[in-house]
């Protein structure tokens, strides 16, 4: 999709996609509290415009995606069946990893979605290798490589920038800056908080983007993708976004004030932003919004039912997939 002023139809699509992420994640939180989902579970609520926007930029035919443990939304936006994602979260055999990966380790070979990585910073160098594959095979693909603000203090991120720039690899590094690396704010952990500039020593161009506005995400994403695809090498996009919930389900987020969170929710919410854009453009029919909401709700409830009703992995699965 080209950067442009979007039709109402487009805006409704964005609205639906972001709403799907939000409702899906809310359902995850609910199922987590019921004990259906266990372990670490990192939700994407507040950050929806990034995954939903970049979905418009990513070619399903030849591009690839890699991200961190906050991966449900990116799987959804890759077009993976929400049922399969929810089943994985519930540890069921019908999940995308047969219940052996869980929340943090989701993959889809078919959609070239390469995880789902639980080690902070790991996606940067792995994604750089995936981009090398695109270049080696000359398949015109670009790797969209996500990591958070916390990861930008890991050494391998810079090892990756260096290699990608030297070898002109087709990769877009997307820093999802939600301003808190677990409980440590960007201000307390980064000597320079302009994270988009972190590629400068390696001649990697970067741009700060309002990651709460899907139109801006798409515009910046298009520009970056076409730069990387044309053989000019890597680009960094710092998506300035915000997560409404704690780092994971076990984090009460006491390191920031309620007022700060409420302020973002009431003034910068990515879903409300699209809704308002539609309203300004043509006036908003409640029925249209309701239709989308009920469609999304059906999908999410269907996914939850599927997960709850799926069988757990048989015991023999324990020893499968260690080696080929």
């Amino acid at each position, binding site marked *: 999709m080209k950067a442009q002023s979007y039709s109402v139809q487009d805006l409704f699509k964005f609205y639906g996609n972001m709403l799907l992420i939000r409702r899906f994640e809310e359902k995850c939180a609910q199922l987590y509290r019921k004990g259906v989902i266990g372990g670490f579970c990192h939700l994407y609520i507040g950050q929806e415009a990034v995954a939903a926007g970049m979905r418009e930029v990513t070619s399903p035919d030849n591009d690839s995606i890699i991200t961190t443990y906050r991966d449900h939304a990116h799987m959804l936006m890759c077009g993976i069946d929400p049922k399969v994602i929810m089943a994985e979260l519930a540890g069921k055999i019908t999940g995308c990893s047969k219940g052996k990966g869980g929340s943090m*380790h989701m993959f889809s070979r078919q959609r070239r979605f390469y*995880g789902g990585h639980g*080690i902070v910073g790991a996606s940067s160098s792995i994604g750089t*290798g995936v981009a*090398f594959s695109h270049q*080696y095979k000359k398949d015109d693909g670009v790797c969209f490589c996500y990591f958070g603000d916390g990861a930008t203090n890991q050494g391998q991120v810079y*090892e*990756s920038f*260096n290699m990608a720039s030297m070898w002109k690899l087709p990769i877009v590094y997307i820093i999802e800056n939600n301003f808190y690396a677990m409980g440590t704010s960007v201000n307390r952990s980064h000597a320079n908080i302009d994270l988009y500039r972190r590629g400068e020593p390696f001649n990697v161009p970067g741009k700060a983007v309002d990651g709460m506005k899907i139109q801006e995400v798409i515009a910046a994403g298009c520009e970056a993708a076409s730069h990387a695809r044309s053989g000019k090498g890597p680009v960094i996009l710092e998506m300035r976004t915000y997560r409404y919930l704690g780092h994971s389900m076990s984090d009460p987020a006491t390191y920031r004030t309620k007022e700060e969170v409420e302020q973002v929710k009431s003034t910068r919410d990515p879903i409300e932003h699209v809704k308002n854009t539609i309203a300004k453009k043509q006036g908003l029919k409640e029925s249209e919004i309701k239709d989308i909401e009920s469609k999304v709700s059906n999908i999410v409830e269907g996914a939850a039912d599927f997960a709850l009703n799926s069988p757990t992995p048989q015991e023999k699965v324990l020893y499968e997939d260690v*080696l080929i």
Partner: protein
Amino acid sequence: MTGITVREVLRDAMREEMARDERVFLIGEEVAEYQGAYKVSQGLLQEFGPKRVIDAPITEMGFTGFGFGAAISGLKPIVEFMTFNFAMQAIDHIVNSAAKTLYMSGGQISCPIVFRGVNGIAARVAAQHSQCFASWYAHCPGLKVVAPYFAADAKGLLKSAIRDPNPVIFLENELWYRQRFDGVSQDPEHTVSIGKANVVKEGNDVTIVGFSMSMGKVLEASEKLKSDGISVEIIDLRTLRPLDTDTIIRSVKKTNRLLCVEEGWPYAGICSEITSQVMEYAFDYLDAPILRVTGADVPMPYAANLEKLALPQLDDIISKVRSYFK
């Protein structure tokens, strides 16, 4: 001098596999223009060009994650570590990424990659450059670990490792590269299967199990022990994971005595694992306790006399075997 050096054999294995499969490429420090820090990749840049023989910056974690990323997206990288000491900087991607992704993805994402380079004990380079990582990697499900001694095995196993759809750790040794061996196959389709130990010499009185550079001393010891009238059966493990327990058990059932040799540390080492397996599966066949000859449980010292003390010596092997027959 007859035979061919291990250095050349390893290069030939890579060259044949690169010619056979366009997806295979080599990346590592100094592998291209410098022709390999130990000259193992001599000539490969000239033959295959810079697209497939890639000089990496000194950036172990970066190029290991990079190699893993290339492997899961359709290529077959050979990642050379100048030495496995430096792979410590990258071990997260070997253990957390390469070894686990097939499992974590429910079998979707395979990782055909070879991590190879210098392992083990070198000469006078002290603690940080002289240590054996065999048991570190052999500990991890999801990896295969290969550590040959004979050149014919080195070639056949490296070719198998490159063809394998799983991550394979291929352990070499600096002092090994210049050794010459006969009997290396020139047939580009000849391979040696991963997971099979080799009974190098048959015997009746005691089994000695070793791998990698320790095999040299084991072979020498068995010759000396012949004059004592002791018939030694020698097993070269060749692969450390999966371990060929069957071959070891079969031998122990015949000789009833087992000595294990490794240059690495004794604590939770390869010999410890073998001891445990034999206790479980052949306890009733043992006529004497299993004995070990290993590196000393200390960081490697620099001083020549101390270094010698820290390493398994020929006499250690001989005297342990003799102790069985006193």
